[in-house]
């Protein structure tokens, strides 16, 4: 699915991501863990095209996407969510989601001026896709609520829905469970399983160890920009390098 080869990103003299190679398989939940400042978010930014790597290649389904601008990468099927998502607070949930499918449409200024058939058809389609995405994350009932009036967890789900409306193949989730309570975390984990069951590939950065260990098919551990381990949750838990670098002496964290 996604193959990363010798990816390096230098910020001045600092290697934020250093020679990382990894392969994410389709239809799996892949997790990236590591201490703060390990280069996890930079790694996501590189895949999404927000930063250009200093060296290395990123290959999506056999196509080298390294030189592409981020809007093209989104069109190729990489969706993402951020730690915090700025939405249009005084608009409804549905209104916020309609633009999600914009990248699959063509209408321009002229279509707006003459209100063309194409524009009408595409707007209808965007609305349908937005509803589908909202339905998928289980929020159909808040469709007409204002963003300002929904809960933190619902915001997270709306951000997922927005990314899903772009019809991605691979979804990059940056700390999806940050700031939500344990029960809601379980709900979000279920949602990620549902995405995979529907043919998506999920890749997430997360600090909640119990969540990661319970749901990831494969984990990559970054530390100081370098990949120090890769494997199943079981392997990661027993890896002495990881325990030293990340889980530290607190063995309960891994349990």
């Amino acid at each position, binding site marked *: 699915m996604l193959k990363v080869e010798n990816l390096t990103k230098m910020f001045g003299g600092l290697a934020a991501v250093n020679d990382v190679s990894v392969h994410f398989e389709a239809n799996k939940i892949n997790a990236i863990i590591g201490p703060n400042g390990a280069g996890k978010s930079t790694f996501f930014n590189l895949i999404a095209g927000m930063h250009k790597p200093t060296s290395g290649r990123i290959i999506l389904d056999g196509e080298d996407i390294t030189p592409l601008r981020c809007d093209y990468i989104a069109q190729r099927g990489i969706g993402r969510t951020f730690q915090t998502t700025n939405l249009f607070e005084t608009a409804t949930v549905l209104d916020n989601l309609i633009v999600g499918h914009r990248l699959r449409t063509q209408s321009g200024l002229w279509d707006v001026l003459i209100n063309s058939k194409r524009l009408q058809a595409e707007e209808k389609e965007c609305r349908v896709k937005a509803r589908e995405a909202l339905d998928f994350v289980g929020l159909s009932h808040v469709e007409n609520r204002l963003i300002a*009036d929904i809960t933190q967890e619902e915001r997270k789900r709306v951000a997922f829905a927005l990314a899903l409306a772009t019809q991605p193949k691979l979804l990059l989730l940056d700390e999806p469970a940050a700031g939500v309570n344990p029960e809601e975390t379980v709900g979000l984990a279920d949602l990620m399983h549902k995405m995979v*069951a529907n043919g998506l590939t999920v890749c997430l950065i997360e600090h909640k160890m119990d969540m990661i260990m319970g749901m990831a098919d494969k984990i990559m551990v970054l530390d100081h920009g370098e990949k120090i381990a890769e494997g199943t949750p079981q392997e990661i838990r027993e890896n002495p390098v990881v325990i030293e670098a990340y889980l530290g002496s607190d063995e309960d964290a891994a349990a």
Partner: protein
Amino acid sequence: MMFKLAALLTRPATKYVFILLALLFPLFAANEYQVYVMSLAFVWAIAVYGLNIITGYCGQLNLAHGGFFAIGAYTLGLLTSDYGWSFWPAFVAALLMTAVLGFITGVISLRLKEHYFAIFTLCVGFIIYMLLDKWEELTHGAIGVRDIAAPYGFGVVDFTDSVPFYYLVLAFLIFSIWFISRLSKSLLGRTFIAIRNGDELAQSLGINLMRNKVLAFVLSTTYAGLAGALYAGMVRFIGPEDANILHTFNLITYLLVGGIGTLFGPLVGTLSIVWLTQSLQFLETYKMILFGPLLVLLVIFFPNGLVGSLLLWMRRKAESMGVAKAPKASRVETSNSATGKEAENNA
């Protein structure tokens, strides 16, 4: 009671009432001066609508807006006075000029983000002012441009009269609002709003930032050019002071008071401030003593502007009254059955 009144105001049919009132305004006006002030307010409103595209919908604070307004006015003024063009060809030329210059400025300035973009455009606005003031061979410098042609009425109407001119400006204003209403509801308008919500998020949704920002910028400068050209045809005498940064800040004030990013905010903001300043005219310089605190109160209690706050209040009120509940319930049912099916498929 308040709610019913507000609901009445926001009904789609209400706009025809307002158009009718605007059409009848010259009959009610006490004197020709009031018609003149109203025309001028409409011209400013068109410019504010332009600012609303780039700043309200697209989220980029453009401080060169008054400059582009002046470019529109000068293009029309110079072409008709120095080069003997008649009004309408010069009018089209003014629109094209502001669009082209807007494109060039946009391509360069929109590489910058947020405050840097605002500062850059502030400088662009000042450069425009300097050019108009100092490039005497072209612009006549501080003397300004005189003998600007009035709109040619094709022998049917005489636009040098204030009442016909009022209707001309009104027609352009209605067209401007109509276009923005269509734009703001369209996918293109939603694309602009996505950019306002954040560059990164918009990019992750596959939106080409530069292309959309430049498009919004060109649309906004063209609106400024339209307003400027009408202004030149109305006052028939323009000078470099028309490019003063003060005008840009006036436009921003109108926009903020009315409601940034709303459809009727620019009109409400412009009309209310123009008429307020007119009615405080008898206080002369002291009017600012009243005007300043009023503005502060407005910003504190109506941070979304008059229209923005009204719409938000309506929405909340409607929700608490349960008006929107009936259709929601049916939707929940359909969505439940849909997820049910999905769950079966998954199993």
